[in-house]
């Protein structure tokens, strides 16, 4: 049974159809990279998976449970699906540790000592055990993004969604975040990443998904797709990215 | 002799509303002029003037309008200055209005980029010329919405003058209440009259603000 299964996902913003029937499955432990031109619908698809965008049609199945588009309570879904954003979105009035503990406390209703232990462990995993009491404004962009990852991890999601999590970082800070993601992949975490880091995708991911105009038009092993793109669109996209 | 019909009540209140409006207009105009002077003192590059203006603003924003009224009405005569309810109400409201407007407008003046001051300095303009020709025309644009918004506070402030016996809407309302024994009705009507005066001002302040944002 796949962990995530998307069937015929459709989504419009007003008159514009942004997702035109997307099917996709992700197995437990798989690391999937989503690539594609700007505006092709990658973010929208990712955000649909944890219900940040309400889809118009189709079915999302996570860990065996269906989420149909008319469903109101998305909490159960969101407990299984973590998300990390391009703009970190740390809570500025809480320290790194409190950022991680908040949802454990109010959503999972964990006791105080367990919460703290879980937060310390999550921060240690992203190499920031010593920054427990630092506020976001006192951290570099790379550190903030790692706290954001820890915050999602601490909730023990089945799958973690990452939407261009290094795009807002200065180039010298990108690697510290990518190496955290690489570690997660190696530890068996199920990951769906939207990324422009092609080399990283090639090295770390099991599966590459190429979106174009609201559809997935190619998918497969990264090396295969990069080296032998079967559509002219992907060929062009790969050429464009590699010219940079 | 003391049978008030609903129409008697309403017409007396509406007649009294004339004085509320007149007092508001006077306070707003005189307060605007005085506020402009305080503003000039507040932003002029002369530290003692700035200090005096700051003190003025602090004083009138830090004490109740009611106390200002009492002092203008009962205390100034002791210093030999004759005051009628009219003049005391006008004076106190003017002082109150000017302090708030000066502070509102200071924010607008400070929103004009420093480069504008420097460029006009370099063209040999003095402080007055800079204000008149460069800074105020730019500050004015952003000052309109909050100024219109504040006019609501002025209209409402006139209600307090009833306490020194100025016969505006609230005062006449209390008098009629006592003659008719219908406080619920009378104060309800009084409230509605103020609402009718203030709400259009609030609405236009909001509309002006939206327009300003859209223009940017």
């Amino acid at each position: 049974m796949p962990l995530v299964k998307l069937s015929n996902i459709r989504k419009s913003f007003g008159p514009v159809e942004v997702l035109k029937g997307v099917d996709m499955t992700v197995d437990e432990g798989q690391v999937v990279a989503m690539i594609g031109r700007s505006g092709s619908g990658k973010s929208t698809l990712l955000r649909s998976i944890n219900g940040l965008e309400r889809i118009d049609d189709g079915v999302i199945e996570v860990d065996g449970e269906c989420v149909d588009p008319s469903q109101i309570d998305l909490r159960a879904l969101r407990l299984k699906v973590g998300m990390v954003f391009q703009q970190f979105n740390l809570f500025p009035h809480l320290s790194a540790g409190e950022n991680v503990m908040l949802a454990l406390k109010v959503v999972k209703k964990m006791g105080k000592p367990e919460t703290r232990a879980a937060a310390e462990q999550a921060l240690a995993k992203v190499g920031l055990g010593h920054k427990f009491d630092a506020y976001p404004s006192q951290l570099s962009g790379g550190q903030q993004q790692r706290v954001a990852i820890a915050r999602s991890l601490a909730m023990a999601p089945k799958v973690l969604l990452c939407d261009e999590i290094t795009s807002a970082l200065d180039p010298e800070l990108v690697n510290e975040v990518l190496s955290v993601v690489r570690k997660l992949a190696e530890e068996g975490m199920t990951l769906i990443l939207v990324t422009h880091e092609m080399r990283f995708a090639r090295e770390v991911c099991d599966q590459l998904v190429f979106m174009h105009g609201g559809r997935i038009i190619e998918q497969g092993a990264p090396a295969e797709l990069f080296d032998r793109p079967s559509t002219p669109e992907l060929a062009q996209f790969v050429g464009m990215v590699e010219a940079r | 002799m003391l049978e008030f019909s609903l129409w008697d009540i309403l017409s007396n209140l509406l007649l009294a509303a004339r004085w509320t409006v007149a007092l508001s207009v006077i306070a707003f105009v005189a307060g605007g002029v005085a506020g402009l002077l305080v503003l000039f003192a507040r932003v002029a590059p002369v530290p003692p003037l700035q200090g005096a203006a700051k003190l003025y603003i602090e004083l009138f924003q830090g004490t109740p309008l009611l106390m200002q009224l009492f002092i203008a009405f009962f205390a100034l005569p002791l210093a030999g200055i004759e005051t009628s309810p009219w003049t005391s109400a006008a004076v106190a409201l003017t002082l109150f209005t000017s302090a708030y407007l000066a502070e509102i407008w200071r924010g607008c003046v400070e929103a004009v980029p420093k480069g504008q001051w420097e460029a006009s300095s370099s063209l040999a303009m003095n402080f007055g010329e800079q204000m008149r020709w460069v800074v105020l025309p730019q500050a004015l644009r952003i000052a309109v919405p909050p100024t219109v918004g504040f006019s609501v506070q002025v209209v409402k402030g006139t209600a307090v003058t009833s306490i020194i016996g100025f016969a505006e809407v609230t005062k006449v309302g209390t008098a009629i209440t006592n003659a008719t024994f219908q406080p619920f009705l009378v104060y309800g009507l009084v409230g509605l009259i103020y609402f009718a005066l203030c709400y259009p001002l609030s609405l236009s302040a909001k509309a002006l603000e939206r327009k300003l944002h859209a223009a940017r």
Partner: protein
Amino acid sequence: DALERITKEKVLRVAVPQDFPPFGSVGTDMKPVGYDIDTATLLAKEMGAKVELVPVTSANRVPYLTTGKVDLIISSLGKNAEREKVIDFSAAYAPFYNGVFGPDSVKAETVADLDGKTVGVTRGSVEDIELSKVISDKVNVRRYEDNNGTISAFLSGQVELVATGNVVAAAILERKPPRLPNLKFLVKNSPCFIGLGKDEGPLLEKVNAILAKAKTDGSLAAIAEKWLHAPLPKDL
């Protein structure tokens, strides 16, 4: 010299109540009417001046005089030692018994019965000063800025009892209010006097002369008949 000014400018400025029937209240045209207003008009006529009525509240009428905003206070003003320190008084011009009033449902026959009750009174009035002297501190006294406030508070049931003049209570009763101010007991006979600024000898003499004449020629009695529906007491 105030009298000189009055005769020169031919204007007599008088502080009158507008919230204290029958001494002064407003008609449907918002003009003050009542015993005090008629007295003021009478005085002005005798002085050959025009009367200028200045509506005041009980709390602020003395400052009006001491700050020179008016020449006279004709505002059901009672005489007491505190006031005599700052202003002068004419002869009495109207009777006034102040007392405690309230609906039949509230029992109060003596001052002692007021304990634990809420009594409304106008701040700075004779009732306020006199009542404050005799009551214990178990009485809950609410002091309002003006008679409008006091009466409104009584009528709306915010206070159980009200301390005011007998004629005032009568005037209210006449208008059939929702709560009736029936007499509980009288506190003090304190007739009304006209208030004048200190050291205004000539004006004081003039006012007293006019009052004496009005008492003998029946013009004051006419005012009393009109507003109090009673003859002028002999001892006034």
